[in-house]
């Protein structure tokens, strides 16, 4: 698209005067000329603002730090700010963030004033030193950039030219043990293109400037490839994108996963096999190793996954369904902390849908120690479990392991859901009161007489419906709570159910939960 002569003149006029301003060579007359034009002509004003936005952006993306800027932003920050939980006492001789801190570690919490002052100073130093105005000082971090990038997924020449450009911030480290001193990154440090992130214990939260939040779990080895793309050799990453982060991509040894909006999780084994699960929105997956995809071009095999679907891609580029994904192995970016740290009760869930529909990619999400008010009920809906009144849900259910099934499983005629129970437990099924009780439930479970409510979000029958927060609000359906004692580890088989007579207002799949004895 070419500019009109008038636009081109305006562009040149603004460009020249801004250049003189930035160089410090503008005369008083030129300053006045620019001021008059900006204040009197809306077109010049718009051009001026765009020009300044572009200059700022280009500078932050491309300009390297001043040579001789020797001090490390992270070490300065480290002197005043705790970087989170201390490493485990049995930490191996690998290096932690804290170990890199040159000054004695001063934990927060001596007094509130002390904490506030410390944070304020830390923030001041952080901002004064780690986020200088135009300087992208990623090259100061060269000592934290490993010399050897992943053997596959090498950055292109163009990406290499942007090497060191800062594109993300490490906002949180929890119990992290880095693989080596050269790979250690301090909390609240900026992270640049080409940088390797490698740690074998703990978890980090990395926020990209594009608005993508990522949660990365050890053991992990990843390389930042550009402002919206990482290469992960192995590890687990969950990414949540705002509208601006759409297009965020994770490359793995066997696939490339591109976010088309909201949240997905990915787990790459050390052999490279890749699992992808979509928690919200949708993703595109290109199957096959990066080199193979380059040669295949348009014949690259692709898969499109939507919310509630998951797949596993192997080395030959074949994919198959993943039946269940739990929140310990692949947590959501903003998941609430578990309500306790007992061993899991629900180990796995499978069904017989793939026998009839091998193309199915639906997965069951297992949430350990997670059942509470407003817990999401199904992987493919925003419906929530809630107590029927302000007293909340039955106390014995709080903190239970539970399963988020596919709500559309309700349509499956001969469904068999197999739930692996890992230890003695009480297993619960939440079954809608508007649906006829099936034989498998009546014969294998006991109705406790307790109820739980379902607060429905938007669905095909009620597209404008919204969920409310807390118990006793916006309850749309009541479910009876059935229970069964399980004395030893075993697999329970649950079945299907008939569509209710009054189904025009919609009906729902059952819920599953378990509490250890």
């Amino acid at each position, binding site marked *: *698209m*070419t*500019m009109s002569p008038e636009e081109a003149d305006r*562009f040149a006029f603004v460009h*020249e005067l801004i*250049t003189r*301003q*930035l*160089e*410090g060579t*503008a005369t*008083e007359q030129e*300053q006045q000329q620019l*001021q008059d034009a*900006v*204040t009197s002509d809306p077109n010049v*004003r*718009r051009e*001026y*603002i*765009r020009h*300044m*936005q*572009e200059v*700022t*952006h*280009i500078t*932050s*993306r*491309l*300009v*390297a730090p*001043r040579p001789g800027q020797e001090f490390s932003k992270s070490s300065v920050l480290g002197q005043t700010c705790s970087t*989170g939980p201390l490493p485990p006492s049995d930490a191996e001789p690998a290096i932690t963030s804290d170990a890199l801190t040159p000054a004695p570690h001063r934990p*927060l919490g001596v007094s509130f004033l002390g904490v*506030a002052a410390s944070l*304020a100073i830390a*923030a001041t130093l952080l*901002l*004064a030193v780690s*986020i200088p*105005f*135009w*300087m992208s000082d990623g090259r100061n971090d060269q000592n934290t950039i490993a010399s050897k990038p992943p053997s596959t997924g090498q950055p292109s*020449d*163009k990406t290499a*030219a*942007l090497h060191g450009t800062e594109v*993300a*911030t490490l*906002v949180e480290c929890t119990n992290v043990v880095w693989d080596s001193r050269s790979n250690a990154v301090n909390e*609240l440090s*900026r992270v640049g293109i080409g940088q390797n992130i490698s740690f074998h214990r703990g978890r980090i*939260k990395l*926020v990209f*400037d*594009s*608005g993508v*939040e990522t949660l990365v779990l050890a053991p992990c080895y990843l390389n930042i490839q550009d402002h919206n793309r990482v290469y992960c050799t192995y590890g687990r990453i969950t990414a949540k994108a705002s509208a*601006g982060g759409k297009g965020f991509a994770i490359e793995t040894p066997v696939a490339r996963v591109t976010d088309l909006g909201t949240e997905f999780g990915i787990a790459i084994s050390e052999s490279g096999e890749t699992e992808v699960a979509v928690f919200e929105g949708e993703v595109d997956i290109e199957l096959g190793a990066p080199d193979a995809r380059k040669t295949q071009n348009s014949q690259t095999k692709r898969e499109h996954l939507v919310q509630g679907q998951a797949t596993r891609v192997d080395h030959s580029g074949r994919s198959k369904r993943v039946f269940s994904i739990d929140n310990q192995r692949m947590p959501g970016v903003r998941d609430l902390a578990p309500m306790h740290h007992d061993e899991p009760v629900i180990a796995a869930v499978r069904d017989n849908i793939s026998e009839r529909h091998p193309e199915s990619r639906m997965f069951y999400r297992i949430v350990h120690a997670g059942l509470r008010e407003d817990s999401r009920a199904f992987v493919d809906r925003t419906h929530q479990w809630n107590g029927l009144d302000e007293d909340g849900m039955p106390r014995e259910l709080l903190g239970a392991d539970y399963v988020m099934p596919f709500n559309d499983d309700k349509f499956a005629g001969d469904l068999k859901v197999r739930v692996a129970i890992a230890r003695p437990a009480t297993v619960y099924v939440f079954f809608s009161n508007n649906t006829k009780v099936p034989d498998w439930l009546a014969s294998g479970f006991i109705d406790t007489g307790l109820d739980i409510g379902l607060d429905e979000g938007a669905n095909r029958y009620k597209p404008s419906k919204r969920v409310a927060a807390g118990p006793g609000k916006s309850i749309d359906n009541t479910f009876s709570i059935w229970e069964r004692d399980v004395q030893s580890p075993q697999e329970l088989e649950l079945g299907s159910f008939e569509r209710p007579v009054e189904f025009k207002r919609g009906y729902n799949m059952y819920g599953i939960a378990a509490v250890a004895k």
Partner: protein
Amino acid sequence: MSLDSEHSDFARLIAQHQRAVQSYILANVPRWGDADEIWQETSVRLWLEFDKFRPGSNFAAWAIRVAHFEILTWRKKAERNRLVFGDDFIACLESEQKQFTSDQAQARLRALDQCLESSSDYQRELLSRFYEPDRQVQQVAEAMKTSVDAVYKSVQRIRKGLRSCIEQRLQHAELSP
């Protein structure tokens, strides 16, 4: 909200929106050193006032308002012999604050990122040297083994090319389903 959590939220928001604030400051005070000084003051002020920021509201808009007051404070202190824009210029840009935070502005900058990636290594090298604070254009010309005039012309041509690229990408995005 815990202090740790507040700290994390602040770092995340700053990381996401700092360029919008910085471009506003630079538009008002188009000299690297001065703009840098104002940004440092602004970022400290943002942290100190962070408890007044309502979660979920527009952080960039709030931060730009804070930056505006830091600009006014800086102007009072600025040496008289410095060239500074007049009050009507500052007021004029104040009325355009939304342009710095709009979705359209964000879309333009995302497009600019893509355009930079598709630029040649030489073009990026030249821009990085040209916009490096304190670097004289004569030094850029020597480093790039060309003349001062050629540097000016090349930078203008590259910037113009980037602008066209941005418009093309935005138009393409609009036409795409």
